[in-house]
């Protein structure tokens, strides 16, 4: 079994540096673990406290009688080696060092000392200088903000904020995440260790990665090549420009190689490369929910003529075929639909369409069988979109992507329900089509 399994599926957690002060990180993390609904033992460690947030406080790790699987360390850097020594003696499986003050400010020696002590006792270390981890299947949010919603995306991030952003978007959209892990200085656990873990993790369908550099290029290639056989991987790696590269070096001291080379690595290993945070989220969403279509023939069904055109342009540029309708299909659609509908691809059901009309149209198109994927664009408030898509999904395995926009409160409600139902919804037609392009090019 992967050694990180004991960390993510921990049965007991200690927070060293737990604090009474609600503004301190040591308080926030403890509160998130409790409020997140963690079912195992929780041990706040603080020599001064008696009770924090209703949990009995211990002055040291050794004072705890029971076993401790994971230790979250939030004390100043100089105390971390001592805590690690104690954690090692307590046979802790993993330590998450939130504290900064290590290699990121040139304090390499202190970091090496921590690594050495941890290695002696077989403790795996996440961080230091990181935002912790969240593993929703175990209701263990040793991080912030508190995100509970369980879903298909595992986020591994060298930036706390980028990771947290993905978590929050996924929660707001009712998609959820399986996990978020902040890499920090990667003194022990690196992106490849985590990719390996999530490739096998039954709660994860897609791995979403923000990195500024990799620990070891060859190991990275071998790991993702293996992981790709199990799960799709999306990566955002900035530092494309000269000054961007310089910013990378001052942020995480990563060696920034040529961007073209990393691009080649993505192509050779089948990783999807995202250009910004929105793409990272969109592509993760699409790959987490849908299977690759059998071909590139797309039918766009829309209530908005304009959005249909935007989708068509994006599709054409991305190599998706906005396939012409056969005479037979045109005839059946014309017979079934009211006269104001524009029977071609994009199929414009026009502004007053009820959701039912989408269902009818897709069913007729499905019968003809020459279409590989569907994009349904709901412009304006159209209630019942979710029911229609749910129904269609029971009839076909072909991917259905939704773009919902201009729909006010109804859009918000339907969007959430569609996500709960496993259909990705995008706020603009071009984002929906780009996600489809990625789905098509995935291995």
């Amino acid at each position, binding site marked *: 079994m992967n050694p990180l399994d004991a960390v993510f599926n921990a049965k007991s957690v200690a927070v060293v540096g737990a604090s009474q002060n609600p503004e301190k990180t040591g308080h926030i993390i403890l509160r998130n673990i409790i409020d997140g609904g963690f079912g195992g033992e929780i041990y706040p460690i603080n020599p001064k406290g008696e009770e924090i947030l209703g949990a009995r406080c211990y002055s040291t790790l050794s004072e705890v009688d029971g076993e401790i699987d994971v230790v979250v360390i939030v004390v100043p850097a100089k105390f971390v080696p001592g805590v690690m020594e104690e954690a090692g003696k307590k046979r802790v499986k993993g330590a998450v060092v939130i504290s900064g003050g290590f290699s990121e400010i040139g304090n390499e020696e202190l970091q090496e000392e921590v690594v050495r002590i941890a290695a002696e006792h077989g403790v795996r270390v996440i961080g230091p200088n990181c935002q912790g981890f969240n593993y929703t299947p175990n209701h263990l949010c040793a991080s912030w903000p508190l995100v509970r919603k369980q879903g298909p995306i595992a986020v591994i991030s060298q930036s706390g904020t980028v990771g947290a952003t993905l978590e929050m978007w996924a929660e707001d959209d009712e998609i959820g995440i399986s996990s978020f892990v902040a890499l920090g200085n990667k003194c022990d656990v690196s992106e490849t260790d985590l990719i390996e873990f999530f490739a096998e993790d039954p709660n994860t369908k897609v791995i979403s990665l923000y990195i500024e550099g990799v620990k070891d*290029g060859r190991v990275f*290639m071998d790991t993702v090549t293996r992981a790709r056989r199990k799960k799709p991987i999306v990566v955002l790696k900035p530092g494309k420009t000269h000054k961007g590269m310089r910013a990378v070096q001052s942020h995480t001291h990563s*060696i920034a*190689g*040529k961007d073209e*080379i990393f*691009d*080649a*690595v993505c192509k050779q290993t089948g990783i999807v490369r995202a250009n910004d945070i929105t793409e990272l989220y969109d592509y993760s969403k699409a790959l987490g929910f849908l299977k690759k279509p059998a071909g590139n023939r797309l039918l766009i069904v829309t209530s908005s003529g304009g959005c249909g055109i935007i989708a068509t342009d994006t599709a054409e540029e991305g190599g998706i075929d906005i396939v012409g309708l056969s005479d037979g299909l045109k005839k059946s659609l014309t017979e079934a639909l009211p006269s104001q509908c524009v029977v071609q691809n994009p199929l414009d059901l026009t502004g007053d369409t009820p959701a039912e009309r989408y269902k009818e149209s897709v069913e007729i198109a499905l019968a003809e069988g020459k279409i590989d994927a569907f994009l349904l664009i709901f412009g304006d408030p159209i209630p019942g979109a979710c029911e229609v898509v749910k129904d269609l999904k029971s009839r076909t395995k072909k991917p259905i992507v939704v773009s919902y926009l201009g729909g006010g409160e109804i859009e918000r409600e339907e969007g959430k329900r569609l996500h709960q139902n496993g259909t990705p919804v995008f706020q603009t037609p071009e984002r929906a089509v780009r996600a489809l392009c990625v789905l098509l090019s995935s291995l």
Partner: protein
Amino acid sequence: MHETIALAKKAGKNLLEPEALRLFSDYSLPVPPYELAETKKEAVEAAERFGYPVVLKVVSEQVLHKSDIGGVKLALGSKAEVERAYDEITESVEKKVDGAVISGLLVRPHLKKGIECIIGMTLDPQFGPAVMFGLGGIFVELLKDVSFRVLPMRRPDAERMISETKGYELLKGMRGERPKDIPALIDCLLRTAEMVEENPDIREIDINPLAVYEKGAAVLDARVML
């Protein structure tokens, strides 16, 4: 490790062009015939054997960019032209590069230009050796129309690194031009990759240009840095 690399490494030098060409020949890259002439007489004899026109290029450790300092003469059509080129090259190089030691002049037949491509290799600090491909001239310099692959590289990688460049359209044959020998180009990329994998001391390769014809290809200039 290839013998030429072992020798150059021992001497702490990069490969001279004839050495690079020998290395390439041993990896079955398409190297046109060449000879190293140490005297004017030898240059003429070589030219007569190949038949005119020929090319003369200076071979010197101290010279990195041959054309810039008058170290290359193309399309020499007669004995007299070869003799004059020989003098002009040696004189120009000695004048423009302080302390240049000329090992000789490389003589080879003057070949058609075909479509000029570039195959390169660099070492990436994170991913190690990577092979580069692009079309010469404005494609590389102005449009940055190049593609890379990290080693190990397989045939589909080589195919895609050609087809993803804009210059691919030219290779396929535009405006009535006949298509160029893309399979030969793919072989060149794969053989370069193989050469790099078997010789980890190579830091940089620049095959520029590699002429690609309707049938076959030819390495017209090569640099190998250790």
